[in-house]
């Protein structure tokens, strides 16, 4: 089925079954391999992208459920003002270990700051708990979100 998707500000046409999950359309048909396959059931968050600004699990979202919504992937995140701040904080603090979950983490963090520009520590934890990091980079994820929000760290984490 021919469908036009809006991804990172561009219109892209694909010709695939309408029940194909967005994750695989992005990775296989459009070449956006930043969103990752982890669990296929919305349990790990590695595939997180933004759909009209909301963080969604691309592994569970079929192509026909996307419709005309605007999709933002990690590849397009630096074009968003908050995305740019988050990316810079992520690099500055050197958040990744293996790095596999980080695209999903960043997308969830962008969605959080879009809706709540200065989240408290427990709000950060609540918003990020759907994104698994097998290496355990959680302290730096918190630190990077706090830094990107412009809030002074409250001492919730330490070395």
């Amino acid at each position, binding site marked *: 089925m021919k469908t036009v998707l809006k991804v990172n500000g561009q219109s892209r046409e694909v010709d695939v079954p309408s029940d194909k999950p967005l994750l695989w359309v992005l990775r296989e048909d459009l070449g956006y391999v930043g969103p990752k396959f982890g669990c296929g059931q919305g349990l790990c968050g590695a595939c997180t992208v933004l759909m009209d600004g909301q963080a969604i699990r691309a592994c569970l979202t079929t192509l026909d459920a996307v419709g005309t919504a605007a999709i933002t992937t990690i590849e397009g995140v630096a074009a968003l003002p908050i995305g740019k701040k988050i990316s810079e904080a*992520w690099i500055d603090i050197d958040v990744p270990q293996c790095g596999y979950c980080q695209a999903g983490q960043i997308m969830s963090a962008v969605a959080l700051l879009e809706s709540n520009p200065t989240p408290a520590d427990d709000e950060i934890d609540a918003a990020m708990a759907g994104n698994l*990091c097998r290496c355990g980079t959680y302290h730096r994820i918190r630190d990077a979100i706090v830094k990107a929000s412009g809030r002074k760290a409250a001492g919730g984490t330490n070395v």
Partner: protein
Amino acid sequence: MSDQALLAGTRRFALKAMLAAGGALAFEIEFAAAQGKSAPAAAAAKLTAFVQINADNSVTIKAKNPEIGQGVKAMLPMLIAEELDVAWSAVRVEQAVADQAKFGEQFAGGSMSTPMNWMPMRQAGATARAMIMAAAAKQWTAPAAELSTANGEVIHATTGRRAPYAALAQAAAKEAVPAAETLKLKDPAKFSIIGRPVRGPDTVAIVAGKPLFGIDTQLPGMVHAALLTAPVRGAVLRSHDAAKALAVAGVRKVVVLRQLGEEDGPVDGLAVVADSWWTANEARKLLDVQWDNQGREKHSDASFAASAKAAFAGKPAEAVLASGDTNAALAGASKVLKEQYTYPFIAHATLEPQNCTALFKDGKLEIWAPSQMPDEGRQLVAKTLGLEPAAIAVNLTRIGGGFGRRLQNDYMVFAAKIARDMPGVPVKLIYDREEDFKLDFFRPGGFHQFEAGLDANGKLVAFRDHLVTFGAGGKPGRGAELPADLFPANIVANADLGMTVMESNIPLGWLRAPASNTLAFATQGFLDEVASAAGKTLPALMLELLGDPRLIMAPKLPDVPDYFQPPPFHTGRAAGVTREVMKIAKWDDAAVKGRGFGFYFSHLGYFAVVADCAAGADGAVRVSKIWVAGDIGSTIINPLNAEQQIRGSMIDGMGHVISGLKVPISGGQVQVANYDTYALPRIDVVPPIEISMVKTDNPPTGLGEPAMPPAIAAIANAISSLTGKRVRSLPYEA
């Protein structure tokens, strides 16, 4: 070096201070490197396998080992760059292909990259620097001894002459490679890269979502494969009907996989190949397959527990250590403790599922693999498919988590087999998450029966451990061993270690700090009980047992390479980290409710952990604070990464104890299919972690593993203290 000298040389420092001091500058220079584009090809001079000097005086350094998140892609090139005497901002790091003839051993395991490469990689940098200096000496007809280097330049102080490496590199490439013993290495006091915080070379690319990982491999005309294997591990494929799967639009082929893979875990299965992985994975569900379980369904947690119970009624099948007279010492003891400890199978659950891309063309195989032991994989593929190793090229990709899972190369064999059946077509195989759990090589479960005897003064005079473990033919499998140098059997006058090996259909694998991750829990848990019986805290008992600083030698193992021989154990270093963690936790001799301690020595690293637990508002037990002290020698090569490794080890340890990690076995089947029933720690359970490193005058060693085992023990002991109910079984269940 004498113990006195060792202790005199002991200095303490906090990672936090290291990161604060000099951090900003290193961040700035390193940021430039990370942003750098790939090196210009024109006029670049390749000096050695590791070092290429580019025309713009930047330097391309090969990172030889697989990067699994342990930070080796920065660490090894840092050693080279230090001795090459260039600024880190001038360094471009490139991943090497698998070629051990050129690069030496290439694997990610055993926390060995640091101890094995600390000198060789520094020598690799010094080699290239010596070649550049030799070229300068010729060009300037100056005595080599008068030349020095700084920041990528050769300097002749007498004449004031100086030249960037790039100006000398073409000539240097023609210089003879100097002998290792002629190389002059830097005085550690002059290190400008080693010991400074350096970001991961891929951090910018990761944050931009660039293709880096095995699963991101894209080749023109590539097809995708999904696997179906038996629910009962090791079952044989009896018959199948692929008609429905083959009828799905986009499906290209169904490949039969028979008894392929590791020698102790051969697998039958079917691979569906399609123009999309999603299509292949959906079509997989339409396969009609009959499996022959061949009796393997008899294995279950209940059968394992029954076998262990029977084994504990008798003597161990194999003696591991017998020193002194344990029977007599127990008979004469004032107080005897006897307890059983147990822990389950667990899975690696790397977030990047196992995958591999392969292309078979003109009799040659090219592989793109996220493997921790790529050369082993090449050999296994060669053996399994009957190819010459030389006909197989292996490219190393970045790896989305290792934890020991990718020390096995099953995915490489499967991908190679499918590719060989489709010549000229690149094939990417990805395991669905359920297959990834099914096809894991599991951290073995096990059962310990301990006995300890205390004399009238509360001194530990006898220690016995009977481990009922898993393996085959009476030999324990991977990570299922009982080492003869187990603490405290290596230190108590009367000690008796023995094991009984059970067979099962569950293949075993090495998981982060193999053996140590179970032994730390069991032995430090039991010793915590011994300490309580003697009216002491565990750290007080530990310091008493460790006594004066001295080296305790471990018995040599047959048929094991030198770098995997058990190392000597230094009681002074063990006591050093025990005292340090007590100090930073501000803990004196008195027991504190909800507080636990754990010490372990593994992978050449000495670590002590204190954990505090408390009941949350919902009544559930939470870890509220962790303190860690470690000793990995004289140098923390990259403190920015060291902090991550240690924090990650603590969080991983929480998974073993409190998040509920276990892989139940029933009917010969793994009863975990995804992350909903395999609950790894999430951000909302992570406590503050305070770290202090004790520096001793020993060569630096690795950090990927040794901090984790004592974390498991400390957290379990903290829960025992909080609830008043001893945690003798993992994971903790309220």
